């Protein structure tokens, strides 16, 4: 299966410029939206800041849509950069994707800050059309339309990636390693993990975004023709399928940075094997099948879906814990690794992903969900694998790309501040959830406010740590040259 890379790879000069744009925008937006998160937690703490509920819910919508979109775009940059080593990608399409995404951002931000749209990033039908005077139909259309444009941006880039993968590997299934997994081809340890991960992300996210497009268009039709009544349960299924798949695809795309960079630090190979291919194939199927764990409290759904949601939820943690996290630990064990900003962030990202799976799997149990659903337990677990998973992976990638990971004392201190703050923030969410504190409440009762204040304090640490790492990267980014070995 191994082929001369240079025959197929993207020309070196085309690999970095647009990735730098994605990263610069991503890091700035991450920091800005972290500030929004700190403000929301402080408002819930009620000691330092007071926000009106209308503004709080607008900021909540901004934070949710912004973070999900930015995580997706930043992970796409990681994915594109490393996939371009193995297949010939079109830089102009990648740039067009970014420009479309920026149009989407303008539409989404405008709908929230000008149009006062505040139906949360999940735009659960039929809330966008029932604002009770708080936002207009036009604002809702702009928000939903913005998400649709963002989806088109991703699909455009995926189309190019898919074609390039098929040109080199013959099919997406072959890129995923299925012929090797099922014994039709010999295991080729030189087959890049990046290609396997890219094929998985491509399959799940195209399906997820397609479902998202359907539900977004249906929502738009309902906004324009209010008499058109849609099935609320069907809409919910589509929304959570789309949302779950999209954010999971971001994690599976970002982990490519770990697969590519950590072996360089450890000076050991991270090749594919049958368990590796089995894990990624299983992850492909399970990411698509697990979304009913978001709907466990919708008793109108068939019981088998709830049972499937719980069981697949547990199973989907196994490939991560057994293959990726374990493989990463094996790689660095007695490796003589150099610990700097990039390597520390990448291992922190691996830890956040692995550890975050535990509260997620536990919440995926019906009996637990009965008392934890839509409490702050939920942001507790997803912040674990997004804030301590995806964000450090992206920061580690940026740090390695820009400065070979060597960001000096400030960088190392920044990682420590980020790690402590992010862990404390996630734990404050989990403790809140165990105390039945609801998520998405603008006003918290007095007994819950201390947890909001801890969240605001730890969120501020996260922001400070992020700035300590990201600001030097942003300064160097325009002049950054390729790091050797990437």
């Amino acid at each position, binding site marked *: 299966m191994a082929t001369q890379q240079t025959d197929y790879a993207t020309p070196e000069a085309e690999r970095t410029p647009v990735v730098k744009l994605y990263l610069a925008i991503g890091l700035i937006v991450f920091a800005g939206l972290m500030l929004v998160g700190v403000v929301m937690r402080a408002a819930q703490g009620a000691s330092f800041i007071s926000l009106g509920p209308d503004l709080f819910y607008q900021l909540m919508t901004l934070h949710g849509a912004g973070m999900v979109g930015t995580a997706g775009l930043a992970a796409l940059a990681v994915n594109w950069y490393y996939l371009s080593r193995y297949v010939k990608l079109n830089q102009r399409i990648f740039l067009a994707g970014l420009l479309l995404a920026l149009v989407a951002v303008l539409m989404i931000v405008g709908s929230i800050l000008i149009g006062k749209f505040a139906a949360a990033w999940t735009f659960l039908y039929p809330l966008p059309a*029932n604002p009770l005077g708080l936002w207009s139909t036009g604002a809702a259309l702009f928000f939903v339309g913005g998400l649709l444009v963002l989806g088109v941006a991703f699909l455009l880039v995926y189309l190019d990636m898919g074609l390039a993968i098929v040109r080199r590997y013959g099919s997406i299934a072959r890129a995923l390693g299925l012929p090797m997994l099922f014994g039709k081809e010999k295991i080729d340890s030189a087959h890049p993990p990046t290609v396997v991960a890219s094929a998985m992300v491509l399959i799940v996210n195209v399906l997820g975004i397609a479902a998202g497009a359907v539900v977004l268009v249906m929502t738009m039709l309902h906004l324009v023709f209010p008499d058109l009544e849609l099935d609320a349960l069907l809409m919910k299924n589509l929304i959570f399928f789309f949302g779950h798949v999209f954010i999971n695809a971001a994690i599976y795309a970002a982990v490519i940075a770990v697969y590519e960079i950590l072996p360089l630090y450890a000076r050991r190979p991270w090749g594919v094997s049958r368990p590796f291919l089995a894990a990624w194939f299983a992850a492909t199927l399970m990411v698509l099948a697990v979304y009913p764990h978001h709907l466990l409290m919708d008793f109108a759904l068939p019981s088998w879906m709830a049972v499937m949601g719980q069981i697949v939820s547990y199973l989907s943690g196994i490939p991560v814990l057994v293959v990726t996290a374990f493989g990463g630990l094996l790689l660095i064990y007695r490796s003589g690794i150099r610990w700097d900003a990039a390597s520390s962030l990448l291992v922190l990202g691996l830890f956040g992903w692995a550890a975050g799976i535990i509260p997620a799997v536990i919440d995926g149990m019906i009996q637990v969900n009965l008392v934890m659903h839509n409490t702050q337990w939920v942001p507790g677990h997803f912040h674990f694998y997004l804030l301590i998973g995806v964000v450090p992976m992206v920061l580690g990638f940026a740090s390695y790309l820009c400065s070979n990971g060597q960001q000096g004392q400030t960088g190392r201190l920044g990682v420590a501040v980020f790690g402590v703050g992010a862990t404390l923030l996630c734990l404050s969410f989990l403790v809140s959830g*165990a105390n039945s504190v609801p998520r998405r409440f603008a006003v918290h009762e007095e007994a819950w406010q201390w947890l909001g204040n801890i969240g605001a304090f730890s969120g501020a640490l996260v922001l400070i740590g992020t700035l300590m790492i990201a600001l030097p990267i942003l300064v160097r980014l325009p002049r950054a040259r390729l790091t050797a070995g990437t």
Partner: protein
Amino acid sequence: MQTSVLLITFLAMGLVAVAFGYVVKRSGTRDEDYSTITRQGYLIRRWWMLALCAVGVLVSAWTLIPFPLQAAINGEARSVDVVAKQWSWEIESRSARVGETVRYRVTAADVNHGFALYGPDDQIVAQTQAMPGYVNELNVTFEQPGVYRVLCLEYCGVAHHAMTAEINVTEGP
């Protein structure tokens, strides 16, 4: 329940943290014989996977049999209709007796809401979604006297946090 869940979660996450800490601590001195490390690692990984699978089977059987959403019915339950709307609750009966099982038949008149029942200790006892066009049935057996609160746990607009109601649970017949 919630405290047990929190402790189990922290314990499991702590184990993951210890594994990472152990490896990071032993990452400094290089061992060139990676094949021996991988051979030993794959052996551990095999047992690790088997252990996770075994735990999964046991936990799934323990928590899914009998199916939890139907297991709460103890004999005859009194039906109470609940309609959620922006931003108030219409609850057919706002009282119950200790030991009584009430079957809340929950729906929504406008957008999605969440019917969450908080006990006198301010911990969630049970919940279900309130959805336009559907009725979700939630069986609750009241175990303590006092004031139970209903909070909306599905974001439904600007007064979502203020959408509350009370249910009085008394002892005796």
